[in-house]
């Protein structure tokens, strides 16, 4: 189709719709712009044809390659559409002749793209405007702010004459002058028969027609008329129409009438077989459901919609409409006409909006499809707060007091603590809770640890915050175990570590242990309330005191232990009361100094102090007082008594522990013995001096001789062997007691002139006083017997005594017999005391045989009992001069004495 062709083409109005008024009101209508297009202003002068106008070309329209812009005038009241012609550059438009009855019509401009592939596609349209058709007047209507003039002129002379209007007739052609030569009938050629599909544009051309002159006009008619051409008489060379919708192959016959300039006509027909088109309704596809967030730009994608053949629906009209859901959104056009755009509204909860796409094709066939856009509210991120920075003591518990909030969550956010900096790395407890904790590690120096809190809401949004925990080193606590002390076995002992301290915290644990030192192990019992205190029972200390050593270690709240402290508990045995010993009972004589000696008292578990002693008299004569009654050695002087009297003294001793004991001692005071008469001692008879280390000298010389025995006494001053050896001086006495001369041959006794003792001399006559007689010691008087009277029957002893004229051969009987006979005129004979007997001995020659010729070199009884053994009495050997204590029940010799 060329532009020139288009400019001569005529569109026939649908006669069926306008038929009633056509006869009187139909007129040719040309289209022109009102203003702004002066160079193309409608030529209203006669002879001007093809009034052209500049159509409003919507700025929004994009020129589509290979597409032709088609502009149509649409009458919505009767759904008729008339095509306007557009210049090649799209800037100009010319009208076909439009036959309109006089009247007022609503009209709008529609813009289509036309492509070979998709046909016409509605792009946009103007608003409706009133078009008033008045016979003989120019009707003006404005489209899109651009006024168009519709000139109705039957013959281009500016006069409207409805009667002159003829279909398909170009008035100007009609007004052309006729030709002058012989006319030949024209040849009409409608073209070959064709077969088309319903809806297809059909173009029938009469171009094959010929004439010898010129063809004045063409007239296309459908015969029979099925309404395909809407009753419009098309006088163009080319007939264009759209194949009507059919249900089966339908032949349409069009008759072409060609009239030449001599008004000679010829006819031809062409058959257009219209085949039904399969479903041509486009397929609307609204795109997949979408879930978007509020505020999102949402594209409603209809681009997958197709024509009925599944091809892009070029000529389709896309209409989006919200069909459900609130709020109602404002849909915006997209560059892709299939799409629509809107901004997801703000919602408080997930909201579904339903949009329906209606796709209509040129045939106004349409389908719909819906898509659901679920608009979700945007998540609001949570907040995180890791809490303040802190400083904590090593070893103590640190708490990370975090918090977090999710402003739009339906449930609490989650928490996650992590250590992100600092050493050492600690183990967090409850790291997934808002409040986490850890034990501050023991550090040597201040250490900063950084912990991050991550708060995550249910939508996965997170917030972070961190806190710095400064760990300060711990100062170890100080253990104080208490002071050393002593306790008694069995005592309940309390060890108290309460004085222990921690300068930078508090003590949380006390550990008492016993230090092994060989002492018994004790069972420490920690106090149920005060952990600083532990107790034990002091073990037995029977073997003596020992030390228990205990160690205390305290631990502070940083779990740092102290240096150990020790305390020593000395366990002493239980005090054992002292033992009072007042000494043995004893006998003394009046005037004897009695020493009360408490020194045998003792304290089994200690030493009695000097102040331990207190003496008192329990029984004593009035006026007797104690000397040094508060000392270990007290004393008194035995008072005068007439008979044996007991004085009882009591000693109380008190040990250092305050325990005391008492004892008494009985001192039996006997009357003092008769005062002895003076009696000089005999000298020893030693006239020689001794040497050191050994040896004696015949005379008085030797070691420190001036201190030796021989230098003193009668042996030195009155040495006369004639009257007795050395210093001894004896006198012989006859039976009547008269002294005899030294030379006397017979004598019975000897008087010691120094001691004035008279001695019996023994005989060898086998009579009473025979020197060979022996006796047992016997004293039945109860006095001076040593508590043992001895043996009355000397003959019965082991080596039996033998004697004459003495019953029992005992000393007492012998003394009695001698006294009975009145030896030497005396009857006070007795056994000599030990020292009396010793007195007549010369410790050189022993017995002076000049005076004691019959003497056994053996043991002689004395009257002196042994103080060591009641069974014994002293004897003196007249062989050596030495003294011994012999059993009274032995047979010994006897030499009696009397005096002085």
């Amino acid at each position, binding site marked *: 189709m060329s532009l020139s062709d288009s400019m001569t083409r005529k569109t026939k109005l649908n006669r069926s719709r306008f038929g009633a008024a056509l006869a009187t009101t139909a007129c040719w209508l040309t289209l022109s712009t009102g203003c702004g297009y002066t160079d193309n202003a409608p030529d209203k002068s006669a002879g001007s044809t093809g009034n052209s106008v500049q159509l409003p070309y919507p700025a929004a329209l994009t020129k589509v390659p290979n597409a032709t812009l088609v502009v149509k005038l649409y009458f919505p009241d009767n759904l008729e559409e008339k095509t306007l012609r557009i210049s090649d550059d799209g800037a100009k438009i010319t009208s076909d002749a439009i036959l309109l009855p006089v009247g007022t019509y609503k009209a709008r401009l529609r813009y289509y793209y036309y492509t070979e592939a998709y046909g016409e596609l509605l792009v946009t349209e103007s608003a409706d405007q009133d078009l008033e058709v008045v016979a003989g007047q120019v009707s003006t209507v404005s489209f899109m702010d651009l006024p168009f003039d519709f000139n109705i002129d039957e013959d281009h002379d500016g006069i409207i004459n409805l009667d002159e209007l003829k279909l398909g007739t170009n008035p100007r052609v009609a007004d052309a002058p006729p030709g002058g030569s012989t006319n030949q009938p024209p040849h009409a050629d409608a073209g070959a028969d064709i077969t088309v599909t319903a809806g297809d544009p059909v173009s029938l051309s009469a171009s094959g027609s010929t004439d010898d002159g010129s063809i004045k006009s063409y007239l296309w008619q459908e015969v029979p008329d099925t309404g395909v051409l809407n009753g419009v008489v098309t006088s163009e060379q080319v007939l264009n129409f759209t194949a009507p919708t059919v249900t089966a192959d339908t032949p349409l016959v069009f008759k072409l009438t060609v009239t030449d300039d001599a008004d000679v006509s010829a006819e031809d027909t062409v058959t257009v077989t219209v085949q039904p088109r399969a479903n041509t309704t486009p397929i609307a596809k609204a795109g997949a459901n979408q879930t978007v967030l509020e505020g999102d730009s949402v594209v409603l994608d209809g681009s997958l919609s197709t024509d009925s053949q599944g091809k892009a629906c070029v000529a389709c009209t896309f209409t989006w409409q919200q069909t459900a859901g609130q709020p109602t959104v404002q849909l915006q056009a997209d560059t892709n006409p299939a799409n629509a755009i809107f901004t997801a509204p703000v919602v408080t909860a997930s909201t579904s909006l339903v949009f329906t796409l209606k796709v209509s094709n040129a045939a106004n066939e349409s389908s719909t499809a819906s898509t659901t856009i679920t608009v979700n509210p945007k998540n609001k991120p949570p907040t995180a707060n890791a809490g303040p920075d802190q400083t904590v003591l090593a070893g103590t518990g640190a708490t990370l007091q975090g918090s977090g909030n999710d402003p739009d969550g339906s449930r609490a956010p989650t928490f996650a603590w992590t250590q992100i900096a600092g050493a050492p790395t600690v183990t967090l407890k409850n790291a997934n809770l808002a409040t986490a904790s850890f034990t501050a590690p023991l550090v040597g120096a201040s250490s900063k640890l950084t912990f991050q809190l991550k708060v995550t809401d249910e939508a996965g949004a997170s917030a972070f915050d961190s806190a710095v925990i400064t760990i300060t080193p711990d100062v170890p606590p100080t253990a104080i175990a208490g002071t050393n002390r002593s306790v008694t076995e069995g005592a309940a002992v309390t060890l108290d570590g309460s004085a222990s301290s921690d300068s930078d915290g508090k003590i949380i644990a006390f550990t008492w242990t016993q230090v092994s030192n060989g002492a018994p192990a004790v069972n420490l019992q920690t106090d149920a309330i005060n952990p600083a205190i532990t107790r034990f029972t002091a073990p037995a200390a029977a073997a003596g005191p020992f030390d228990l050593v205990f160690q205390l270690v305290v631990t502070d709240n940083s779990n740092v232990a102290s240096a150990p402290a020790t305390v020593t508990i000395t366990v002493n045995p239980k005090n054992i009361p002292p033992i009072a010993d007042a000494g043995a009972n*004893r*006998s003394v004589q009046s005037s004897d100094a*009695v020493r009360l000696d408490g020194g045998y008292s003792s304290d089994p578990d200690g030493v009695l102090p000097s102040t331990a002693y207190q003496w008192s008299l329990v029984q004593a004569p009035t006026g007797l007082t104690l000397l040094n009654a508060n000392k270990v050695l007290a004393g008194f002087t035995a008072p005068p008594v007439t008979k044996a009297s007991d004085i009882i003294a009591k000693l109380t001793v008190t040990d250092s522990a305050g325990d005391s004991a008492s004892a008494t001692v009985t001192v039996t005071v006997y009357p003092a013995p008769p005062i002895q008469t003076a*009696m000089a001692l005999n000298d020893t008879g*030693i006239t020689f001096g001794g040497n050191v280390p050994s040896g*004696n000298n015949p005379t008085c010389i030797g070691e*420190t001789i001036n201190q030796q025995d021989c230098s003193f006494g009668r042996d030195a001053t009155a040495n006369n062997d004639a009257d007795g050896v050395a210093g001894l001086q004896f006198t012989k006495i006859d039976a009547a007691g008269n002294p005899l001369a030294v030379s006397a041959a017979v004598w019975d006794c000897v008087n010691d002139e120094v001691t004035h003792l008279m001695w019996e001399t023994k005989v060898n006559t086998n009579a009473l006083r025979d020197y060979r007689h022996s006796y047992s010691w016997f004293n039945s008087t109860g006095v001076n017997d040593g508590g043992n009277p001895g043996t009355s029957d000397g003959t019965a002893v082991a080596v039996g005594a033998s004697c004459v004229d003495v019953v029992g051969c005992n000393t007492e009987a012998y003394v009695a017999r001698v006294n009975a006979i009145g030896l030497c005129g005396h009857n006070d004979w007795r056994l000599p005391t030990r*020292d009396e007997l010793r007195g007549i001995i010369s410790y050189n020659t022993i017995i002076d045989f000049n005076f004691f010729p019959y003497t056994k070199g053996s043991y002689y009884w004395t009257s002196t*009992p042994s103080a060591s053994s009641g069974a014994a009495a002293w004897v003196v050997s007249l062989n050596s001069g030495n*003294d011994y204590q012999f059993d009274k029940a032995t047979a010994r010799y006897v030499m009696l004495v009397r005096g002085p």
Partner: protein
Amino acid sequence: MTAKHCIVMLIWATAAGAAGADCLPSINATSPTNRFTVNSNGTATDNVTGLVWKRCSQGYTLNDGGTADLADDRCLPTNAYDFYWKDALLAAQTVNATGGFANATDWRVPNLKELSSIAELRCSAPAINLTIFPDTPPATKYWTSSPLYTLADTDAYQIDFKSGGHFLADRAIVLAHLRLVRGGF
């Protein structure tokens, strides 16, 4: 008397004197207190024998206890009190040579009979009158001036005041106490 007591007594023998002797009233006193005149100069006069004795053994010093009462008289060791026989003889000589004692310079070592005469045989351990001779150890021997008569013998006599009997001891080997005497009838 137990062994333990014996040990204690030995300690006292050197420290504080004898606590007391076992004395039997059934034995006549051989050295009764009334036989002596106790002098205020540390001596006691035996009125029977006329001997004047130092109340304390040589090397001990009398402490009369601050009273006239004999009951608190003590003989406390102040000097060496154990002697060999020779040293005992020399000790007596030294006393006399160095100012004497109790205004006397004729102190001597007693002979056997003299020393034996103050043995209190009613008592034992010691067999002595502790009123007159305080703190005499209970089992101690005292030298006499009497050498053993046997020619060339090495011994001299001692009195063993445990029993009051004689004892023979080597002059140069055995240590013993010494009690000085002077005078005598």
